[in-house]
């Protein structure tokens, strides 16, 4: 097949690079939300421990 003209080839190249960028970004976003949940759980545990200590 002959080389595609730039305007047509651009769509394919853009699509490939968007996929390459989007998949890791989605992955990082999922991990970030998980880490956020863990941090809030740590804060809740800390609060419980402090409540327990002050209740003594």
């Amino acid at each position, binding site marked *: *097949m002959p*080389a*595609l*003209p*730039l305007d*047509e*080839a*651009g769509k*394919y*190249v853009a*699509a*490939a*690079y968007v*996929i*390459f960028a989007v*998949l*890791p970004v989605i*992955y*990082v976003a999922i*991990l970030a939300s*998980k*880490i956020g949940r*863990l941090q809030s*759980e*740590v804060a*809740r*545990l800390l609060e*419980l*421990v402090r409540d*327990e200590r002050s209740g003594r």
Partner: protein
Amino acid sequence: MTALRSNRLALLAAATACLLALALALVFFYAPLDADQGFVQKIFYVHVPSAIVALGGFVAAGVMGALYLRSGNPRWDLRSYVAIHLSVIFGCVVLATGSIWARASWGHWWLWDEPVLVSFLVIFLLYCVYYPLRYSIDDRERQARAASVFAITAGAFVPVNFIAVRLAESFTHPRVLSQTGGNMPGEMRLTFLVALAAVALLYVTLCRLEIAAKTLSAQLSELRRALESAHVGALPGGPRARRSQAPSTPAASTGAGG
């Protein structure tokens, strides 16, 4: 110690971002257009490095699986799990970008008679089996052992498959790492090597991020258990409440650090 590790992760992430930016600049402003394929050939700089890194990750996961079986240290099992997880994600990138390139270059999204494409799909599907295999076993030690054996066997299959494909006659897919296909001009070669380093660094950074998240999760579970058994009692949403439904991840059996 945790702050030091977090700083190192931030530095690694910054280095990855810089190297990716450099690679993109080289791809679009430095590397010449391919005489045969024109602008579409730019896909090469994400497709091939992603494939190399994904396959390297599968092999590395096998080595880590062997280290787990040898030492019994759950950290190796966690690393093996994370390496496979990320290689499967990079495998998705390879299949998607490869299909787009095939459509632009050959006029087809997929060619079933092309050994390079089909062999990569076989490897990808093989590793998709890893998850149901792993989570079908409840006992964590047995789960880690079975997963490690799988990682070693499948990891050994990757280079064998690679050699078999090299021996097969390819009609359409170009050979990148060979005498003929590897003869890239200097600018293209440099761009390719920088792109490969950037993708490899991205893989390592994401691996470390996931390992950090899983280690944090395991430490939190341990803390919960300790608090529960000490004096706080049954904590809301704690392991007592969740034990029946929580899937066993490799991090759950991993100690501190990672």
